[in-house]
């Protein structure tokens, strides 16, 4: 057994450590103001977006860029269900996730037809642009270029414009979905996902239904990012088509790479670091993009496996293993 493999005690410690993080984070509002709380809330949304993205391109190994489409679908679904149908926003989160999952199903249809690599990339990019066109040109539903504001709402007598209340909701949703994704990846299904990435033909020869694996991964990715879209809709209170364009896709891709491709921990680190970084760079108006680009390039050159690799070197507790340990 390799010395880097965690023991069962370490596994148990890892589970405790996982839940300890959101529990400790409950104290965050004591140390934040409205601005910093808003940024922290944005990090939680980015974690789900990055996680959904890395699942498809990192774990499943499919060069698919429909992530921003799922995000937009989730955000608009939440806004439309709240503003047009009067549903409480909290109820729109799973529904937005379901519609994001439907988007994942549609995006996977190209992969299921054997389209791979750059062709899949272009098709999924086109899917994203098609969705953006739809947001722009279905004005009665989406508000067109004016966007769609979410109605003001209260929960437990507190306005949902309150960043602290939003934080607790976002934290709960993010923690549950990250844990669910970790469990999924550690299951037999998760191992099948990575087997497809390594060699799809060999995986199929082991009687693993690769089509179902690909389909399910896209659907779960769509669900995660759709839920993130619903959180984003409430986060900004007003959804616009511009929020779901190429820039968002590039930023999400950078989060995946900086954190570490195919790593849940990397998704979290990439999202946190690259959401916070532009805020630190606010002090350099006009130079932000330059600094941002340089920092991202420096991280990738120094750590090709992303920030997660740095933590893995520090402790085996951060090693992500998705296969059964030898007894």
């Amino acid at each position, binding site marked *: 057994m390799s010395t880097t493999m965690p023991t069962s005690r370490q596994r148990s410690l890892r589970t405790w450590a996982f839940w300890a993080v959101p529990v400790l984070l409950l104290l965050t509002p004591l140390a934040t103001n409205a601005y910093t709380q808003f940024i922290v809330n944005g990090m939680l949304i980015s974690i789900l977006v990055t996680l959904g993205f890395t699942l498809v391109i990192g774990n499943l190994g499919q060069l698919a860029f429909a992530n921003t489409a799922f995000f937009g679908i989730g955000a608009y679904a939440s806004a439309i269900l709240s503003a047009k149908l009067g549903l409480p926003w909290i109820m729109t989160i799973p529904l937005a996730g379901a519609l994001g999952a439907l988007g994942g199903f549609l995006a996977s249809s190209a992969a299921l037809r054997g389209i791979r690599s750059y062709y899949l990339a272009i098709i999924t990019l086109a899917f994203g642009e098609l969705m953006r066109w739809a947001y722009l040109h279905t004005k009665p539903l989406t508000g067109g270029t*004016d966007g769609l504001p979410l109605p003001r709402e209260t929960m437990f007598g507190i306005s949902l414009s309150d960043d602290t209340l939003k934080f607790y909701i976002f934290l709960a949703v993010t923690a549950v979905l990250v844990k669910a994704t970790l469990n999924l990846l550690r299951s037999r299904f998760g191992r099948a996902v990575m087997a497809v990435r390594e060699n799809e033909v060999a995986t199929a020869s082991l009687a693993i239904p690769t089509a179902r694996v690909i389909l399910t991964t896209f659907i779960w990715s769509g669900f995660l990012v759709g839920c993130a879209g619903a959180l984003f809709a409430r986060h900004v209170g007003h959804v616009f088509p511009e*929020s779901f364009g190429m820039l968002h896709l590039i930023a999400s891709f950078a989060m995946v790479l900086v954190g570490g491709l195919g790593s849940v921990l990397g998704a979290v680190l990439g999202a946190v670091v690259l959401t916070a970084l532009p805020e630190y760079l606010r002090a350099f*108006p006009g130079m932000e993009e330059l600094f941002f680009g340089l920092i991202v390039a420096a991280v990738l050159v120094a750590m090709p496996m992303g920030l997660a690799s740095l933590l893995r070197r520090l402790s085996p507790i951060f090693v992500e293993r998705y296969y059964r340990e030898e007894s």
Partner: protein
Amino acid sequence: MNKLTTFLTAATLVAAPALAQDDAWETQGLSDGAITIGVMGPFSGNASSYSKALIGMMAYYDKVNEEGGVHGRKLVAVQEDTACDSAKGLAAAKKLISQDEVFMLQGNSCSGVALALRPTIEEAGLPWIVAHAVSDSISDPLAGNIFHGVPTGSANGHAMAAFVLSKPDTKNVAIIEHSNDWAHSYSNPARDYLREQGVEPTAELTMERGQTDATAQVLKLRQNKPDFIIAALYEAETAIFLRDLKKYGMGDIPVMGTAGTDLENTLKRTGDFETVQNYYVIHSYVDNLDGEKMKPWADMIHGYYPDEELSTFSFVSIGSAEALVSALEAVGPDLTRSKLIAALEEVRDFDTGILSDPITWTPEDHQGVKGSAVAGFVDGEPTVLKAWGQPY
């Protein structure tokens, strides 16, 4: 009596912290020597060229400061980037309000961002003067602390239609536009105004963005023979449309364009004076950009920003900055946020000397600029017009 005294004392003790908090809020961002003003704009990203819209305002602050400030207080701008993105804009607003604790806000290009900011700023209650973004929904319905210091989309649309109808015997008006909300923000108020005046547009055509030929639209218009055409098109498509109008012998029909196009830029794009000689655009200023009345403002900007290349945007925020300073002066040295809001609501027919129309803010209406002038070529020279044939 004793009981009443005890009750009043107790009530005072209970209310004191809350009142002190209110007092602190009222004067947040103020010191004996400075008034901090949060200035948000797109300083990075695709729309960063709009940040030029804040230059005039910043230069005006500098000028006021050089002259001693307002009641001894300097106007200190704290700039934050919105990148024309709603999430980044919200972060900027929250930083300015809760971390930098500015006294008030002024600025903002990008209507989408301003719309996303509205609930947060309305809830925060500090004064906000919108100095560039034009969407009507930013300040309508009325929010007690939000003031619009430039002509809104509807004001521009009305101004376009009013100019069209000011041409004698204009009965047959056609509209050509892009199928997006930007175009509709001009064309719909123009339609409303025409209908109010009993004029129904006789042709309503669409020209999509990126279209490189307008033959089909022009041939339809030829059958229609309009007296005037309202064109809610971006500059590139405007140049193509005007070129094709001339090509089919309709270059003598006047065309009314939006504030999104510039007269001289359109001339540069077409490269032919005859093509644009009957083209008119919304122009919010009292003179041409290089005219005598604009020269002091241009000199002011260059005094503080020598490298600034002046464009239409460079001047747009000066008028609202002047109105702000006037209101600050009216309040006096004992400044609070509530007093400033009250003073802004007292601004009536304020002649900025740069905007073509005055600023009026009332408690019922915070959209301060209700009209706009028009620019067109008269005797071959770009001229600012009040109405057809009437120089400003």
